[in-house]
């Protein structure tokens, strides 16, 4: 495994090179925050800026979130496994163009959520160690996780229906409707979001259990077959709602029913705007 420090060096080098040659207008990567544990997303526009780039285990942000706002510019994006899947998914959805992107792939294992101290792996989120699509790879490829990213669902799936509802009811009830989840999510690029609509008004404006439930269920649905399991929503949540569990479960369902995982292949179509005649009715049972 390539050391984070080496990745950082290569990231700087590559960014400088791209900016100097004018191959991209800017490089989306990470810069220093108020301390080591809190790097921040950083956009390098000049080769001097590139000197400010950092990379360490706390660089958990999914920069696809920022890239999606620049569909027309030629940009470079630093992308770990899940981040690259987000880019692929956004390309599938026509939100980004492959030819406008230089993907700086970062194989990364042992990333750490600064807030919880948890390692990002198949038990939490961002199970993919290696980028699925990239132009440059800034480190050596890593072995992929051996365990299924869905094993973590076992506990919740083992509960009775009532038990699961109790679990989610409590979680939804705590939601402050701050929308940090959707702000952090690279796939939540809708502007406006359905929740901002007044016609129809899908839920009360103030955080009530019923409105929160509607918001989260609908958002989960909108991300079904699109969520790349980067975990940004969950890390962003100020009250620690484990949103990733629901997303994971729908990802698992999509893989089982439609044989497709989000953001894996450029030529795929998102599963819910696609169909196969042979899908079969058993999926409805």
């Amino acid at each position, binding site marked *: 495994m390539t050391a984070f420090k080496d990745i950082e060096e290569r990231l700087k080098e590559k960014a400088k090179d791209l900016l100097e040659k004018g191959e991209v207008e800017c490089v989306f990567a990470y810069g220093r925050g108020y301390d080591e544990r809190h790097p921040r997303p950083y956009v390098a526009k000049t080769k001097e800026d590139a000197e400010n780039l950092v990379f360490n285990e706390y660089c958990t942000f999914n920069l696809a979130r920022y890239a999606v706002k620049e569909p027309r510019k030629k940009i470079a994006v630093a992308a770990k496994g899940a981040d690259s899947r987000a880019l692929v998914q956004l390309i599938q959805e026509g939100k980004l163009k492959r030819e406008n992107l230089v993907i700086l792939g970062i194989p990364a294992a042992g990333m750490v959520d600064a807030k919880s101290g948890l390692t990002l792996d198949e038990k939490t989120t961002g199970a993919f160690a290696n980028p699925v699509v990239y132009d440059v790879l800034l480190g050596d490829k890593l072995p992929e996780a051996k365990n299924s990213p869905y094993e973590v669902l076992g506990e*919740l*799936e083992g*509960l*009775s*229906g*009532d*038990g*699961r*509802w*109790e*679990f*989610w*009811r409590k979680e939804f009830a705590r939601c402050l409707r701050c929308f940090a989840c959707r702000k952090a999510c690279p796939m939540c690029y809708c502007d406006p979001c*359905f929740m901002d609509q007044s016609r129809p008004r*899908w839920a009360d404006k103030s955080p009530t259990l*019923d409105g929160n*439930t*509607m918001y989260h*269920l*609908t958002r*989960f*649905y909108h991300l*079904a*077959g699109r969520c790349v399991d980067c975990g940004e929503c969950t890390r962003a949540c100020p009250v620690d709602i484990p949103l990733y569990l*629901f997303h994971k*479960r*729908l990802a698992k*369902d*999509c893989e089982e*029913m*439609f044989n497709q995982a989000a953001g894996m292949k450029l030529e795929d179509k998102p*599963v*819910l*705007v*696609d*169909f*196969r*005649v042979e*899908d079969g*009715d058993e*999926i*409805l049972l």
Partner: protein
Amino acid sequence: MDFEPKILGIACNWCTYTGADLAGTTRLKYPQNIRVVRVMCSSRINPSFIFRAFQLGADGVLVGGCHPGDCHYGTGNMYARRRLAITKKMLEFAGIEPGRFRVEWISASEGNRFAEVVGEFTGQVKGLGPQTKLKIKTD
């Protein structure tokens, strides 16, 4: 008094709604807990409609469309099938009894099938009792 569930039906205009009419024309009897909303195609159904229906107090939701391959609009029900399959999985994972939601392909000539499905489904929902989890608490 016995629990009489409220069941929302959402039926496509060309097949299931017409099939439901046929059930009437042939004077078939089935439980009247169902109230049917007519839409042009099962692909019009937004999964949020289903969540909404449960919030509005539906104890069960039955969606009807044309048989795959017979959609009036060609492929609408193919998309609907995927969407509604996800919806079903979502309800289940959220802890809502999956038996409260059912999708059936019923053609315009299957009046008896409509009556049969409604009968079966009503019985099933009755067995599950009132749906209180998603229903909006007014008090």
